[in-house]
């Protein structure tokens, strides 16, 4: 059996296992877009095998292109969902529809990355369609990494915590994104159709399989048990957080007084 076929079957088995685990652990409620993305990947992989055997190559590539657009859209939704769920601890202090702003920010980042991806040299001998396809792949590989960098940087700067499940999903996606980016960069130095070029594609698939395996293992493992949280600790927090509101009002007063003083001057 060819390595491609082995990777493909292993990937589908891992995707099916992951879907079952996401349902069993009820993570699909928390990360619905991620769940839909994994379901879509499984359907896409199954359909690809069927279409590759039963359709002419030209028709197959048209369907593949449509699949690529759906895949990119779903990946975009996964990034927005992940970003939004990371902001959960501070959602109270954000406007209700702040997630739309987050989606616009990610879309804008994508728009900035597209011309950046165009700047990198393209592999030689690519058709016009192939170029667009390659650019789309590269744009999303860079965008995913940029979004993960931004999420990591912001959460570090603002000290926002990540829940274990979100961190696991982000780790898998981050690893897969870095593998895709490395392969996309290596591809720019090779000729399409050569064995080396194809081997790199296999490496990217191996990266995806690695992420799937990591997710399966992570979701099979039980979450760490809760630590002891005594009434004293609880009182400690109550006291620290207790007069925060009054403090903020007082601070706003200081600001208003200062502004008035400025106006008088």
């Amino acid at each position, binding site marked *: 059996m060819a390595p491609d076929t082995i990777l493909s079957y292993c990937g589908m088995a891992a995707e099916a296992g992951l879907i079952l685990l996401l349902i069993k652990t009820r993570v699909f409620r928390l990360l619905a877009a991620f769940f839909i993305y994994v379901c879509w990947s499984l359907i896409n992989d199954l359909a690809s095998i069927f279409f590759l055997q039963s359709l002419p190559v030209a028709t197959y590539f048209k369907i593949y292109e449509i699949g690529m657009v759906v895949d990119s859209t779903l990946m975009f939704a996964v990034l927005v969902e992940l970003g939004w769920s990371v902001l959960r601890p501070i959602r109270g202090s954000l406007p209700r529809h702040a997630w739309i702003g987050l989606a616009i920010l990610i879309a804008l980042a994508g728009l900035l990355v597209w011309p950046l991806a165009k700047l990198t040299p393209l592999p030689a001998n690519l058709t016009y369609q192939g170029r667009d396809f390659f650019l789309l792949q590269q744009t999303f590989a860079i965008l995913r990494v940029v979004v993960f*960098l931004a999420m*990591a940087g912001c959460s570090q700067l603002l000290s926002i915590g990540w829940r274990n499940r979100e961190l696991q999903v982000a780790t898998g996606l981050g690893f897969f994104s*870095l593998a895709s980016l490395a392969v996309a960069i290596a591809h720019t130095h090779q000729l399409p159709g050569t064995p080396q070029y194809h081997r790199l594609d296999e490496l990217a698939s191996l990266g995806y399989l690695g992420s799937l395996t990591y997710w399966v293992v992570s979701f099979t493992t039980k979450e760490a048990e809760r630590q002891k*949280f005594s009434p*004293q*600790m609880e009182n400690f927090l109550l006291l*620290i957080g207790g007069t925060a509101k009054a403090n903020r009002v007082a601070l706003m007063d200081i600001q208003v007084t200062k502004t008035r003083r400025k106006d008088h001057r």
Partner: protein
Amino acid sequence: MILTLLQIASVLGITLYLGHWRNRVRRRNTQSWDALLGRLRPDWSARELSNDFLWKEGVSATPEEAWKRMEGPRGLMVMFKNAGVMLEMADFAAKNSENVDRVILETLRSDAMHIRMCVLMALGQYAFTQASEGVRVNAYRAASMYTGMAARMTRLLQEHAAVMVPDFVAAM
């Protein structure tokens, strides 16, 4: 050739940073309450800002005086770090207890986040305009919230762990 090397270096750099960040988040998710308390930074004391620091809330100084007493960016950095630890305390409570009042947690997070934002704004402004009025006002806002949190912490230790008070007062 240079472009290729740059690309390899960037991918490697990003991988290292994300790996390091992930390990930090994982460690943060498993740390104990005692470890959290031990991470409060004692290398700058906010006692210069208030005559009754740790015992009463509020800053007994004008924004201009407060800026001098907090030793500029040094005091701001300590407040930034300690506010982060407060946020982690809120996360710890949210993760390990169902009985803690969610509104209080939300307020605590928001408070600590406000301190960090004020400090970041003050540090950002300081980098360009040195100690302008905007910098001093932001620093004053952060200091005011910070002294409030420290005073409440002392009161709590007095009530629930009086043995720890001398160590805590010395550390702060």
